[in-house]
């Protein structure tokens, strides 16, 4: 149970926390925060387990995570712009209530 596994478990904890908040909250900005926390959690799992190699940690997950961070901010920026536009047109910062199933 060395440092790699500890941070991997923290990552799983963050992922689940974010998932719970994503489902629970109705306000869009909170959902976007939840998605970001989940993203950080997954990336933490990816890099934490890379620390199990002996001397230098495995650089491939590090490159993947940098790509992941840039993808995360692109998605967040688009989500925020979409949310603002939705607020202007529908006046509410929440998803329109569930359409007829």
């Amino acid at each position: 149970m060395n440092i790699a596994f500890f941070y991997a478990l923290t990552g799983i904890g963050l992922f689940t926390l974010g998932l719970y908040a994503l489902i629970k909250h109705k306000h869009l900005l909170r959902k976007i925060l939840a998605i970001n926390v989940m993203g950080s959690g997954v990336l933490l799992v990816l890099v934490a387990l890379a620390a199990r190699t002996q001397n230098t940690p495995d650089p491939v997950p590090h490159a993947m995570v940098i790509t992941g961070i840039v993808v995360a901010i692109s998605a967040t920026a688009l989500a925020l712009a979409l949310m603002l536009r939705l607020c202007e047109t529908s006046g509410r910062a929440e998803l329109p209530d569930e359409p007829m199933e």
Partner: protein
Amino acid sequence: MEALTLLSWGFDVTLGGTLMWLAWRTLASEDLFKGIVLFIAFGLLMALAWVRLDAPDIALAEAAIGAGLTGALLLAALAKLESGSKESQPLQESTITKAMVNKSDKQILFRLLLVILLSVFVAGLVYVVLSLPLQTIGLSETVAENLDASGVSNPVTAVLLNFRAYDTLLELAVLLLALLGIWSLRSPSERNESASGKVLDMLTRLLVPLLILVSGYLLWVGGHAPGGAFQAGSVLAAAGVLLLLTGWRPGVRFAGLALRFALVMGLAVFVIVAVVMVLLGGRLLEFPLSFAGNFILLIEAAATLSIGITLAALFFGTRPKPAQSSASREESGAQER
């Protein structure tokens, strides 16, 4: 040294615990502004966690992009949200949740079920992660063997810009795509900043040249130490955000094709270099051994500029208003449907 491992364990446990606690507070805080500020703190602590996991490149990227720029985007969005809702109707988000204080028992049941489901999910994941082998070699040896053929000595930059350069190419497309998506949502409108005081102007005048210098340094150092295009680009974006906050706007000439060209340049240089390699008989994105370092630096330089401008444009939110002269030409071309 028993004391040292105890100390380092203490540090890890507090850092991990604080990360979880901060994330929970961020997501559960009743006031949105507090949530966002806590989220920025969470981003900075994540950067600390990356340093602890021997990943300085990611720590740089996380601090600059994850905490800094994402925080700026969130705060700007919150400001627009509140100013928007004040005019239409005072949508006080917190009052709505208080009004639902007597939640129906269906909702409590739903929450309980969700918690149980998630705890089973966590238990499964924890068991799975702990079942992974304690020691692995991963790809670090294969990367080390091919490192000198990659033209750079920093393994992460080697993976990012040579071994898996194709991923980075697509990722630059994702960044450009986000900006295109945002620009398609809204017609260009003049965003008027509140009058920035002399102190902010002075701070910007001092910091922006320094930020540009640091960005160039990060770009150059990326070859042999933690740094690289994305970290340098995000520092450049910070300078852009600061400038935008003081009410600076790109000049008339620069708002049209020149801006679009600067945004696309990172991706364009990447594709041109890749295709030139194919025409010279090699494979896509295969750099010749002797020039690999120079090609990577060329691509990184163009990418840094494009990433910096794209991230600043993401913060700005809409297309800059093209000057009247060019706008009338564009509008005249449009045949209204």
